[in-house]
């Protein structure tokens, strides 16, 4: 089967993004095996050392090895990104399917709530919630999902609305299939491609939200390292120890760029599939 150059390029970049994403997850999982130092090993004699052959990424103000902290931080930041995205999409899909299938006042109510939360600036809302709740990592994941599900809910609702009028769903209804069963068996499978794209994009956004929260000191709390709170600590000494800001930020950028390019490619290929 021959492919045109555009499609080939698309497949290549999807594969490349998948490889990078897999590599990032692998590095995070293998952190205890490959990190050259313990992430919280304090070395007051070797404080604020510039990157060298011993400390590839340098050390911070307590002499902790930055490379090890970036690797361990990946576990926290990526876990929050992936789990919050999964929860976001599960919530959004649930609300969207209920709204789309139920219609009438349930639909109107759920969509107005989604619109209202969308109108509240996301980061400030999350910062206030974090100040009030003082969350650990699991609760932080819940909070991120709680302010992020609305876009998915809107898209899923729209798809469900159009699916329920299609012949195969109406036929199932006429044959006496219960609405809930039909939602599960006939509608959900058709929404899954949308959910895959939504999840991919949500991973990037969740990583960014966590990093911003931690950057303001209200997200992941030290001594646990996350890329965001490493930048929070780096901010004050940035002029003299720029490596402290450079590496965690680059880690965030690479991760978000990877999932976003994956999401973009997947949504383009879906539109292509639909058109053909």
């Amino acid at each position, binding site marked *: 089967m021959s492919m045109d150059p555009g499609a080939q390029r698309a497949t290549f970049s999807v594969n490349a993004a998948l490889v990078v994403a897999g590599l990032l997850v692998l590095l995070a999982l293998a952190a205890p095996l490959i990190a050259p130092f313990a992430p919280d090993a304090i070395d007051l004699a070797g404080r604020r050392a510039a990157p060298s052959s011993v400390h590839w990424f340098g050390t911070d103000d307590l002499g902790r090895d930055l490379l090890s902290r970036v690797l361990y931080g990946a576990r926290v930041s990526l876990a929050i990104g992936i789990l919050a995205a999964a929860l976001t999409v599960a919530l959004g899909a649930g609300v969207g399917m209920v709204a789309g299938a139920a219609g009438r006042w349930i639909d109107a109510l759920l969509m107005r709530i989604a*619109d209202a939360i969308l109108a509240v*600036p996301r980061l400030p809302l999350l910062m206030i919630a974090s100040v009030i709740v003082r969350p650990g990592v699991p609760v932080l994941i819940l909070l991120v999902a709680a302010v992020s599900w609305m876009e998915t809910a809107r898209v899923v609702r729209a798809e469900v609305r159009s699916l329920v009028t299609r012949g195969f769903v109406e036929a199932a209804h006429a044959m006496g299939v219960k609405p809930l069963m039909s939602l599960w068996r006939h509608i959900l499978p058709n929404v899954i491609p949308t959910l895959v794209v939504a999840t991919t994009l949500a991973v990037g956004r969740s990583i960014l939200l966590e990093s911003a929260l931690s950057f303001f000191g209200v997200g992941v709390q030290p001594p646990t390292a996350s890329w965001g709170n490493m930048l929070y600590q780096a901010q004050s000494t940035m002029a003299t120890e720029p490596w402290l800001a450079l590496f965690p930020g680059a880690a965030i950028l690479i991760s978000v760029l990877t999932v976003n390019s994956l999401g973009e490619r997947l949504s383009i290929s879906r539109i292509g599939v639909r058109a053909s």
Partner: protein
Amino acid sequence: MLLLRRVAQSIPLLLIVSVLVFALLHAAPGGPLAIYLENPGVRPEDIERLRKALGLDQPLSIQYVRWLSAFITGDWGFSLSDGRPVAQRMLERAPATLELAGASLIVALLAAVPLGIVSAVRRGRWVDRVSGVIALAGVSLPVFWFGLILQLTLAIGLGWLPSSGRSAVFDSGFVDRIRHLILPATVLAGVHAAAWSRFLRSSMLGVLSQRFILAAEGRGVPKRAVVLRHALRNAAGPLVTIVFMDAALLVSGAVVTESVFAWPGLGALFTEAIVRRDYPVLMAFLMVTSAAVILLNLVADLMHRALDPRVA
């Protein structure tokens, strides 16, 4: 008539937001008085007295109605950090934020519009692909990190631009103000410029594939005129809508940008209030910005209808 209906539709949204904001405030352990509970110098009987004086012993529903009616009439309470009225503190900070937002809007459009047009016209060519990569990087950048890096390189490293603040202590002429604006406005504009350029590209492509464009080309209208006069005019409507719809994102961006660059606006006031657990300021900020977002979304909708007669 339409205007009235759309305005009426915004009111329930505002009410839901107000319930959310109120619930958040009262979900705090200790509620609005939390800051006093943590202070060993404040006696329990004083807290009890404050609770009565502020009506916090009343049922929540009554408290909500009181709070909302006070808020609507401009009584936003007093800041816990300096005791001044919240409305006054926010009014003082608003001009700096509006200045920054206006400047970043200009920067974002100056970058997004040419990029979007060129990428659409040269679709699939290297200009398009490079701008696609830049746009993808733009929406993937952590805003605060982008700010820190620009500060580090252009301000601290090269010394071309001031690293923070709104104007120098002594010289604050026009040029100085612009110099202070450049970095924060660029950072705040970044994510928008990236997203808008791709949006304009795809709406331009949609228009360029239509028959009236082919007809214009067939009549011998020069390419430049076809692109700028016919295609851009039709693609501009959706772009204007998106610009207004992104208001909520702009607020989040302003909180981050103002904090990184010590820009004395509403976003910096918000982060100060976060550090001091200044709940009245936090709540007012959320209410005001959400109301502004709802208003701007309304404007976006009305402008979309005005610019495109096909939208019934």
